[in-house]
C-alpha cells in the first residue's frame, strides 16, 4: 500500500519534472527541474530494490553532473554575452529520430519478454552493495579497471585543456 503510493509520487515527480526539462524555454529552469527528475528516478530505483544504484544516481547525477551543468550555464551567461538558445529547431529530423528510438524501445520491451505486463513480486529490499562489490572485484575486474583508467585519462585531459 505505502509502496504503491510512493511509486506514484516518484513517478509523477519524474514525469512532470522531465516535461519541464523538455518544454521549458529557460535553460536554468530546465537544469533545475532535471534535479527533481534525478531524485524521482532514484526513488524508483529504491522501489526496485536497487539501493546502491539509487544512491549512486544521487551522488553522480545530482552531486556531479547537474552541479557542473548549472555552474556552466550560470558562468557562461554572466561572464560572456553568449545567448543560450532554448527553442524548437529542426522539427522534422528530431521527430524522425525520436520516433525511431521510441519504436526500437517498444519493440525491444515487448518482444524480449512476453510477461512484461505482469506485476511480479520482487524480493524485499536488501543490501546489494556487498554482491556488487564482490562482482566488481572478481568477475568484472577488467571492465572495472578499464573504466577507471578511462576516467583518469579524461580527468587528466580536462586538466590539461583547462591550463591552456
Amino acid at each position, binding site marked *: 500500500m505505502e509502496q504503491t503510493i510512493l511509486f506514484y509520487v516518484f513517478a509523477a515527480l519524474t514525469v512532470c519534472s522531465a516535461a519541464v526539462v523538455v518544454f521549458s524555454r529557460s535553460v536554468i529552469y530546465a537544469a533545475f527541474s532535471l534535479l527533481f527528475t534525478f531524485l524521482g528516478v532514484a526513488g524508483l530505483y529504491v522501489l526496485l530494490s536497487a539501493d546502491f544504484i539509487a544512491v549512486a544516481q544521487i551522488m553522480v547525477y545530482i552531486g556531479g553532473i547537474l552541479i557542473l551543468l548549472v555552474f556552466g550555464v*550560470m558562468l557562461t551567461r554572466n561572464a560572456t554575452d553568449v545567448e543560450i538558445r532554448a527553442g524548437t529547431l529542426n522539427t522534422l529530423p528530431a521527430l524522425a529520430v525520436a520516433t525511431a528510438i521510441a519504436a526500437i524501445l517498444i519493440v525491444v520491451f515487448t518482444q524480449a519478454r512476453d510477461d512484461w505486463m505482469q506485476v511480479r513480486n520482487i524480493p524485499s529490499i536488501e543490501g546489494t552493495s556487498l554482491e556488487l562489490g564482490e562482482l566488481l572485484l572478481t568477475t568484472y575486474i577488467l571492465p572495472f579497471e578499464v573504466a577507471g583508467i578511462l576516467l583518469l585519462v579524461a580527468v587528466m585531459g580536462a586538466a590539461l585543456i583547462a591550463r591552456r
Partner: protein
Amino acid sequence: MESLLQSFLGDNLLTLVLYCALPLVFIILYELLAILGEVKISAFMQDRLGPMRTGPYGIIQPIADVLKLIQKEDITPKNADKFLFNLAPYLSFMAAYAAFAVVPFSSQYVGANLNLGAFYLLAIGSLNVAAIMMAGWASNNKYSLYGAMRGVAQIVSYEVPAAMMLVIVVIFVGSLNLQDIIVAQSGPIWNWIVFGGPKADVMLPSGQLFEASWINLVYLPFFLAAAVMYYITALAETNRTPFDIPEAESELVSGYHTEYSGMKFAMFFMSEYANMFLVSAVTAILFFGGWNSPFGTYVGELVNVQWLVPVEQFLWFAFKGLFFVFVIIWLRWTLPRLRVDQLMYMCWKVLIPFSFAIALIVGFLVVVL
C-alpha cells in the same frame, strides 16, 4: 521505537510519518539551544554578558528571536526569479533533513537503517549544493551569485577529503551501515575508532563478526589524524569560520542569502544549524563511538531498567553532537577567515594527499593484520 509507536497508533501511514518526524522535533529544540549558545558563547569569549533582558540570564532570547523572524515582512526582490527564489530555502532545509534519515540517535532509533548509510550521507549532501546555487542565482544579486559560486566551489572541493575519511572508517569496519560502525566501537572509551578501534571481537548487527585485538593500537595515529581532518572538512562543508568565505560579511554582505528575509531566511538558518549538528554527529559516529557510553556500561544496565538504556544512548549521542557544535562555535569566535586561495591550497594540496595516504596505509594494515 517503531513498534512502540505502532502499538499506540496502529500500523498505518500516520505512524510512519510521525516516526520520520521525530528528528525534526530534536532539530528544532537543538536549534533554540544553538541560537542561545552562539550569542552567549560569543559574548563570553569577548568578555561581554550577551542578552540579559529576556528571562533569567536571557535564556528565552531564542524564542524572542524566532517570534521576531515570524513577524518580519516577507520580501521578494522585484527582479528575482520568483519561483526558484521561493523554492530554494525549503530545498535547502529538505536536503539537511534528508540526511538525518540515516543518523542513528540510539540503538533503537534510526529513521532508515540503510546498509548504505555512509554512502547515502555523502550523496545527499550534494542536494544542499543545488539549493545554494538556486538561491544565489534566483536572487539576481551579484553578492548572492558570488556567494553561491564560492560556496559551491568550496563544498564540492571539500567533499573529496570528507569522502576519503568516511572510506577510511568503512574500510576498517567493513560495513557502510552506520549502526555497524557504532556497534563496532561498543565498550569502554579506548574502543572508539579515534583510539584505534575495538580491542576485542565484536558481533555487528548485520550478523558478521568483527575480529579485533590489542594490535589495533597501530591504527591510533592514522585514525587520530583522520578524525581531525574530517572535522576540518566538516567545518568547510558547513560554511563556518574559518571557512565562511561564501558568507564573508565584509565582502559579500551575507552571501547567497543576502536577499532573504523573514521565514525564508529562517529556513536557511535552520538548514545551516541542522548541517552543523549533522557533521558533528557524523564525527561522533565515525570516530567517537556514536551513541556508545564512554564507560562501556549504562546506568540502565546496572540498575536493570531496560528502557533506560536507549534513553542514555540518546543522551550520550546528543552530548557528543552538541560538544562538537560547541567546538564549531568556539572556533568561529577564535579564528580569522581564510583567503580563497588558502582554502583551495588547504583542500587540494594538504587534505587530499594526506587522506589518500591514510586510506592506503589503513587499507594495507587491514589486509595484513
